[in-house]
């Protein structure tokens, strides 16, 4: 039985980002972009490792992280599924995380010498497009 490569991950082993982190990021992105929805089944750790030709421990680590973040859940005997989108963190914790993520972007913008107004304009445009994709009914 051929494992279904449902995730279509593109992993770059030469990247500075470790493979397990690439898997975590890409699965999160698939859920955020609604390519994967609540209740969708993911390949097993074994099938994922085999179909993407990565070490089984790499796949297992990625799934462990995704599970601890509440992105996926394992149902004994049934497999791994995209979890209900219930946030596990407090509002403060979520804000802290997004601030840290934004700080990294700000540092990069500084090094690229992007002026404040331009940066805000770019962020607004990207944010609008992203949120529109999340909620297709809204405009």
């Amino acid at each position, binding site marked *: 039985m*051929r*494992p279904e490569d449902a995730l279509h991950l593109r*992993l770059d*082993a*030469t*990247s*500075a980002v*470790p*493979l397990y982190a690439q898997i975590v990021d890409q699965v999160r992105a698939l859920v955020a972009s609604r390519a994967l929805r609540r209740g969708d089944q993911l390949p097993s750790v*074994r*099938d994922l*490792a*085999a*179909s*993407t*030709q*990565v*070490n*089984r*421990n790499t796949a297992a680590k990625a799934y462990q992280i995704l599970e601890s973040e509440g992105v996926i859940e394992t149902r004994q005997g049934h497999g791994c599924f995209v979890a209900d989108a219930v946030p596990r963190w407090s509002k403060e914790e979520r804000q802290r995380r997004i601030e840290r993520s934004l700080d990294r972007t700000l540092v990069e913008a500084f090094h690229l010498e992007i002026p404040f107004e331009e940066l805000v304009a770019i962020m607004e445009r990207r944010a609008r497009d992203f949120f529109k994709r999340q909620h297709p009914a809204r405009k």
Partner: protein
Amino acid sequence: METAAIVIEGFTKRYGARDAVHDLSLEVPAGSIFGLLGRNGAGKSTTIKSLLNLVRPTAGRLQVLGLDSAADSVAIRGRVGYLPEEPCYYPWMTVSEIVAFNAAFYDTWDATLAASLLERLELPRERRLKELSRGTQAKVGLAMALAPRPELLILDDPTSGLDPVVRREFLEAVIANVQAEGGTVFFSTHMLHEMERVADEVAILHEGRLRVRASLETLKKSTRQIRVVYPETVPQTFPLSGLLRVDRNSHQAVLTVSAFDESMPATLRGHGAESVEVIDLSLEEIFVETVKGGA
């Protein structure tokens, strides 16, 4: 299981006046995927053949699954899957015949798995081996190495000369069938892109000697490049140890280091650098720098 699948202690193999392998010691942890890297003639094949008693050591000891490579070689062959670089089969046999032939040698042969591998790898049962392409022959070899569900799979440059499609199928089958079952994989290869994806541990052999042995993660963290820009001329020396290589031009030096630590950028800034950028290297780049540079 905390034991080592392979233990090599002080292994030397001499041919005439030359040591093909000199004083090699290493351990392969059980359940790991271990990559043995080295240029052609570095001693990888000699090492692997010694594990299987196809080559007798001049000095040292080799243990496979706790058994001595020379004294217990028959027992070892019954528990280990082995795929040599040049598979040596009977070219007049058909795929079905060679599978049946091999099955007889292994207590743990799983006929259902063998059948499923033949199908999965799209191997034509009734064709004679001599009629098959190199890639297909290699896949037959792999199916036979995997069918006994070995605790240890030893692969000697299995994917050289094979096309990218076959290489992927190989890797997929090895991961799904051996690693998933808790088995150990000992891989000698030039295919560094594949190693980079799957290896837990790597060792680099150069001219018969062990140059590096580390987890892949550690190796990638330690062997890195630092691009340093200076306001005026680039200094002649740098206050860093483990320098494998220095490339200079007018205001920039690129330093390749073998033991990177987080304090190095600050040290370089203290030494007059205007800007410092740390660059991660691919396994291929690390390999080239390690076998060409340094002491």
